[in-house]
Structures are given as C-alpha cells and as structure tokens.
C-alpha cells in the first residue's frame, strides 16, 4: 500500500509563546510566510459578528513603520503576492515572494501582530468594502444556503453565523469593538508563524528571533466555552431567491476535528463526493468540478436528477457539520433530490463499502495528500491549517486513521453520523419573479385548433 509522505519541518516556540514552523523546500525560488491566529468568528458575540473579518481587512491599513497601503505596495514591488482570510476558527495572513526578500514579510507580520494602528479615517471606507464583499457573496445561492444551514444547526454556538457577519452588526460597530478584539486575541501566544520555501532554517531562525522575539507575550486563550446542546429532531428551512434550479443541502453534526473518527469522516467525504477538502485530489489547479467515480455523482448526476452533487466535511475545532448537497437538473424537483441524497446515506448505514472500493479510496487519498506538498504556499498552508485546528501532528494522525479503516468502521461511523434526529435540511427554491421573467421571454404557444 502506498504510504503518505510528510514534509520535514522544524517546530520551535519563542519565549513569548509564538510557535514557529520552518519547512525548507529544496530548490524553490520563493518563500511563503504565513501567520495563523487561532481566532475567528467563533470568538465574536451577537452584536459584533463580522468583527474578526473586518479586523483582518484593517490590518492592512498600517502600523508605525508601514503607512496605510504600504504593506501592499512593498510586497507587490518585491514581486510578491499577499492576502488574508478569516474563518470561524482562525484568521491567516500570507505573503509569497522571491526568496531574496524573505525578511520583508517577517517585518510586516511582527508589526501587524501587536502594533496595528486601525486608523479611524480608514474604518468607514473599509466598512463599505466588507459590506460589498458580503453582498457579492449573497449573489450566489450556495453562500445563502451555507449561511442558513449553520444557522439552522447551531442555536447557541458561534458557528451559527458566517465569518462575514450580519450586515446590521457591521453597520453599527465602531473602532472600539475592533480595537478590543485586536488587543484581546492578537499576540504571539495565540499565533503560529509558518515559513516554507527556498531558505536555510539556520539563517532564518535568528531573523525571526530579531523581529518576533522582542514582542511581549499576549493573546488571550481563544477557546470557546459555549457548547451546542444536542439536537432533538430534524430541522428544515426553505429559502427562495434568484438562481437557475433548486438546490438542497442536508447536514448532520460531527464531532470536533480532534475526535478519533475524523479519519473515517475523511473517507466518507471522499467516497460520497469524490474529493476531501483537506486533501484535494491532484495538483492545485484545474481542479475537477465533477467526480464521476464518486457515489453521489453516480446516484444523482448520472441518473439525470442533478447537475452536481457533492459532500462537504469541514473539520473544525468544535463540533461542526458534515453535509451533502445537490443542484437539480433543469425540470427536476427538490424532493427528488432530497430523497436521493437520503437514500445514499441509508445505503451507507445498511451496507458495507466493498473492500476493493475502500482500497481505491485510500490510494486516491494518499496520492492526493502527497501532491499536496507541492509548492511553498501549499506546504505552509497545510502546516498552518492543522496547527490552527489543534496541532500539525493532526495531519499525520487523521491520514493514518483513515488508512487503518475497515469497511465495518465506515459503516459504524455512517450509522452514528447520519441519524435523523440531528438532520438539518435547507431547500433553496428559485423565486417566482425570475421564473416568470424567463417565461415571458419565450414566444407564446399556439393552441391547436380543433
């Protein structure tokens, strides 16, 4: 059996609590530098939803040494790319640039960690920008469905809102809210610095110490104490809006990523949808939009019910969702889709996946995971993601657990996961106004005489 490979990296901790992971990539002409903060929308409370994401935007707006816009300008002039993203569990900032400019992102990230200025004059402009980002996402039905299914499944835990936050909260927050959030959670004790690429760790270590070593220990423990109570019955919600054809998403609660069953959820995701988000198949580009070898594809797309059918297991620090979704083929109804998805999970509970099929899945998983180390950016992303979710060793553990799984293990995991009591269904229907407009465009039908 093919075995997974792991990139060698050095793992150190500075006195102020900053964890530093260094992963040299031989012969690489670039260096990718990431800082992952273990803080995201899960650390918000009602009234300040969207704060973590808005703050992420504001951290490009200046520090004592970098005036607003200068971070972007300096990195781009050095031939680099930079960006950031905010999730429920973490916020990550990254820069990838030619290796001779390695020190620049280290200077930037060290300043950004504790000395961002959040200038008041930039705040309102950026408020409009984050609202515009939210509106842009709302133009896409899958975003609306995703937001709704988390709101349906979680009533207490902060996973119930999206990292983009509610527009009403973004409208009324002020600088103090963002500043409090920044002072509370940003700091070396809450962050992981990952550097991957063409460098020598022996020479980079002292540079990191120079920039990050003097920072005082700060960053409050971001663990969330709220526990979502058990779900006591199926929940359903129906949305209407613009779009092409109806869409349905059904989700069930899964344990946190630390749970020993995570390797099994990974395989279920791969079996049903054809791709595991943690270990995408193949290189990072031209990612296939369809997986004809996957179970849901065969059951829904090959049969003409749907134009796409996928699964989604997104491991999180706290209990999250495993979901299936499908978009109807033109002329097909939403109840057919829902029935077909539920039939597939019933089959998983009732029958074991053949051993030969499981062997193929494992091979696909390992090859995909091994290719996932290609490039400095992807290597740094992978190390940082698992660190932000708990520890970089999770990567190894989840993969090994998956490789040990038997058909019986998968059947047991499916039986526990897909129970009706914790089922959440979101149906998305295309609004009548759009359908009636489409109808008006067609020429009127002639009635047959006689």
């Amino acid at each position, binding site marked *: 059996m093919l075995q997974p490979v792991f990139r060698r990296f050095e793992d150190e901790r500075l006195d102020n609590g900053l964890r530093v992971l260094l992963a040299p990539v031989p012969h690489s002409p670039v260096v990718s530098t990431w800082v992952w903060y273990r803080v995201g929308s899960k650390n918000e409370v009602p009234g300040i939803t969207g704060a973590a994401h808005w703050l992420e935007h504001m951290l490009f707006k200046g520090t004592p040494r970098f005036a607003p816009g200068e971070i972007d300008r300096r990195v781009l002039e050095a031939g680099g790319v930079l960006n950031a993203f905010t999730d429920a569990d973490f916020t990550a900032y990254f820069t990838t640039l030619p290796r001779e400019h390695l020190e620049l992102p280290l200077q930037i990230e060290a300043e950004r960690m504790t000395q961002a200025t959040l200038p008041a004059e930039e705040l309102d402009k950026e408020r409009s920008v984050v609202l515009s980002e939210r509106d842009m996402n709302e133009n896409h039905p899958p975003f609306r469905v995703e937001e709704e299914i988390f709101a349906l499944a979680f009533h207490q835990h902060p996973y119930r809102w999206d990292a983009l936050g509610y527009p009403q909260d973004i409208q009324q927050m002020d600088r103090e809210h963002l500043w409090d959030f920044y002072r509370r959670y940003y700091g070396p004790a809450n962050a992981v610095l990952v550097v991957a690429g063409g460098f020598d760790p022996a020479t980079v270590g002292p540079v990191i110490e120079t920039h990050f070593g003097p920072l005082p220990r700060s960053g409050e423990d971001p663990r969330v104490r709220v526990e979502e109570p058990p779900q006591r019955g199926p929940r359903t919600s129906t949305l209407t809006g613009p779009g092409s054809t109806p869409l349905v998403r059904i989700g069930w609660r899964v344990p946190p990523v630390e749970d020993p069953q995570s390797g099994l959820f990974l395989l279920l995701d791969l079996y049903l949808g054809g791709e595991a988000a943690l270990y995408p198949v193949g*290189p990072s580009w031209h990612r296939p939009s369809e997986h004809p070898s996957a179970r849901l594809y065969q059951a829904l797309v090959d049969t003409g019910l749907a134009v796409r059918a996928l699964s989604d297991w997104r491991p999180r620090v706290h209990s999250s969702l495993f979901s299936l979704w499908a978009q109807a083929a033109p002329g097909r109804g939403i109840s057919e889709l829902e029935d077909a998805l539920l039939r597939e999970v019933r089959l998983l509970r009732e029958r074991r996946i053949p051993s030969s099929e499981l062997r193929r899945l494992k091979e696909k998983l390992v090859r995909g995971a091994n*290719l996932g180390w290609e490039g400095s950016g992807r290597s740094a992303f992978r190390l940082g993601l698992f660190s932000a979710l708990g520890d970089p060793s999770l990567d190894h553990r989840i993969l090994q657990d998956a490789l040990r799984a038997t058909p019986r293990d998968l059947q047991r995991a499916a039986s526990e996961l897909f129970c009706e009591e914790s089922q959440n269904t979101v149906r998305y229907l295309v609004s009548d106004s759009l359908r009636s407009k489409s109808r008006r465009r067609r020429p009127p039908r002639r009635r047959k005489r006689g």
Partner: protein
Amino acid sequence: MMSETVRDPLTLGKDAVGQEVDLYFQPAPSSSQSFAASWILLMGSRVDPPGKGGLTAILARLFSAGTERRSKRAFAQELDRLAAVWSSEVLWDSLTLTVAGPADAWREILSLLAEGLQQPRLEDREVERVRREHQEAILRHAAEPAERAEKEFLRTLFPIPHPFHADPVGSPESLSRIRASDVQAHYRRHITPRGSRLVVTSPENPATVLREIQEAWGAWTGPSPPPPLRGFPPPRRPRNGLEYHAITGTREVEIVIGGPSVPRSSPDYPALVLAHEVLGGRPLLSRLFQSVREREGLAYHAGSDLEARHFAGFWTAEAGTGLANLERVSDILVQEARRLAQSEIGDEELRRIRESLLSSLPLSLESTSSAHDLAREVAEFDLPPEHWRRWPQVLRAIRPRDIRRAVEREWFLLEDPLQVAAGPPRPKT
C-alpha cells in the same frame, strides 16, 4: 529540436510529432513533483454550425466520459488511481484539454490523454448529461450579476455573427437542437492532430518524453484544421448611458465598461498589457483598485481585463458595488480608462507596476501548474520558445508615450465606452 540541455522552464523545446502535431516541452521547476500536459487545437466555438451553438463545448466535456477501451467510470477510476485531474476549456477560437498529476505517473497520464482524445465514446446518454449541465449553467449565469453583465456586454458590443457575440456554451435553443449524431460528426470533422499543439511540463528527460509521445500520437490522423477566422462584422457603437439588467433578489451590482481591441498578434500587445496592468490588472496597486476601493471605499473588487484572441480582442474595466454607488463607480471606471489616453503614465508609476509584474515571474516557476500556464500561452499563440526569457526586455523597452499611443490606437471606444451593469432592480424615479 529538443535537446537534453533544455532545463530552463522559461525556454521551451519545440519538435514535431507524427502528422503535424507541434510538441512544446518545458522542464518542470526543480522543486516540483508533478507533471502536466495540454493539447490545444485552434477551433473553439467559432466552428459551431449555425443554430447549434454549444456543440464544441459539449464535445469538449466528453473526452473524459469513456473511451473505446474504458467505460466512463473506469476512466474516472484510472484518473483517481493516478491522482490525476482532467479539465477542458473551450473559448471562441480554441479547445484545450489538460491533464496533470504526479511526475512518477507521467507515462500513464500522457497515455490517458491520448486515449481520451483519440478514442472517445461520445454516447447518447453522456451528450444528454452535458446538455443538462450546460442548460443549467446558462440559467445560472443569467441570474448572477457578474456573469450576466459580462455576457450582455459581449452580446451588445459584438453583433451576430461576430464570434464574441455567442456564448461558447450555447443558448437554451441551440442546445435543444444538438443530438449525439451531431457531436460524433463534429468530432470527425474537426478533431485532428494537424495543426494541434501538445504542451508538456515534466521533470523527465525531453528525449524520453518525445519517444513516448511518438508512440502514442505518431499514427493518429485527422482532417485539415479549420482556416483562420476572417470576415466578421465590426463592433457596434453603443448607445449613450448605462445598459442595466435587473435580477430580482440579488444584492450587488456588477458593472462592466469597455470596448473592442486588437488580437494577440498586434505589435501593440505588450504596451496594452502594461496599460491594463496600470488601469486594473495589478492587484492592489492598480489605479482602479486604489481609487474605487482604497480611496473611496466603494467596492470590494475593482479591476480590468484584456482579452486578446487570435482574431480580435476587447478591453474591460469592472467593479461590484451597491445600487447607491452605481453611478459614482461607473463614472470612475470611465474616467480612469480615459485618463490612459489623456495623459502619459508617470515614469515612477510605470516602473512600479512593470517591476511588480516582472519580479513576480519567479513565483510562476515554483510549481508545475503556473509554469505550465506560461508554456500553454507560448504554444497557443505561436510565440518564440524563449518568449518568457525575453519578456522583461520587451516590457522595459516600452515608454509611457508608447502606451498612450497604443491605447489611443487600439482601445476602441475609450472616450465613450459601452457600459453594462446587472444587479437588483433599480427603484423607480
């Protein structure tokens, strides 16, 4: 001729295989462990028969949907086993199939590409499936402001039968007319090794790769490729003002302004690339990003695009914003585009944008994926094999006045560009 000394991903080796296939070989970056191959044929949706728009796009999806040797499922399982991915792209004037995966599986991956291309099944049920998927895509694009604005922009600017007018995916009506027999006939008539290009990015020795390709591709024969496109109608002059498409239930307005431009072969192309980078192409540094997002906070995204195909091109500036800011943002897009012709770009601004563009080239040389994209461009547009090696020199020779002149000459309608927007219904005044 390819030689074993070619180890620079910016300099391609070129050779011929069998019946007029041009092979472009690019050494994979030394830190990469993957392999990629693309097959390019200069046909695309322009060869769709009248009334059957979308035929090439359907055919393109069927090359991985089963072959004479393997069912669709077996083909997919073989791709899975190799951890390889397959993709297809149809534009107005090109069809590209790409397959990529681990470097140690390069022989099997190349062989799958040849098998899918040379022996596709083209079954009725698969034609039906792809038709359904494309019908849904057309409905989706009509309901999403960004897609809708872009498609309406092209439809308005380029009259029938200009190739840009028609969506390569087709229309609901044209898709409903296509039968499996049409797809099979289209394959026989147009899919050919003659005049096609095979682009390979691999850490293997080029001579070894060439031998393997000769074996799998050397005996393949086919018809003549379609002649270059000539004689299409000129673009339309737009009516004054903004063309607005209301989509009930959407939140953000997407605006596209622009006009026709020149093909990729134009000598002005490098200067136009710099004009586009200054206007909106360079992320975060461009004029549009700086004015629309950074200075005024009016939108999340604002940028520009430069499409230069074999037969013609177009330029655009785009942004997404709220209804309340629609007019302000479209004014900025128009003003910033006009400014390129009204005054020369400052030396310092040009230096900053150009050097940012050029110094990011090493980023493309880390992974097979980004290096392969560079090689594909060389192959598709018949550029010299050392094009990317020379590119910095070409861009550094361009002066601000060259850009201004090129824009004046080749970005048509710059003074009065077509303006199209799509988004939520506007309140009645």
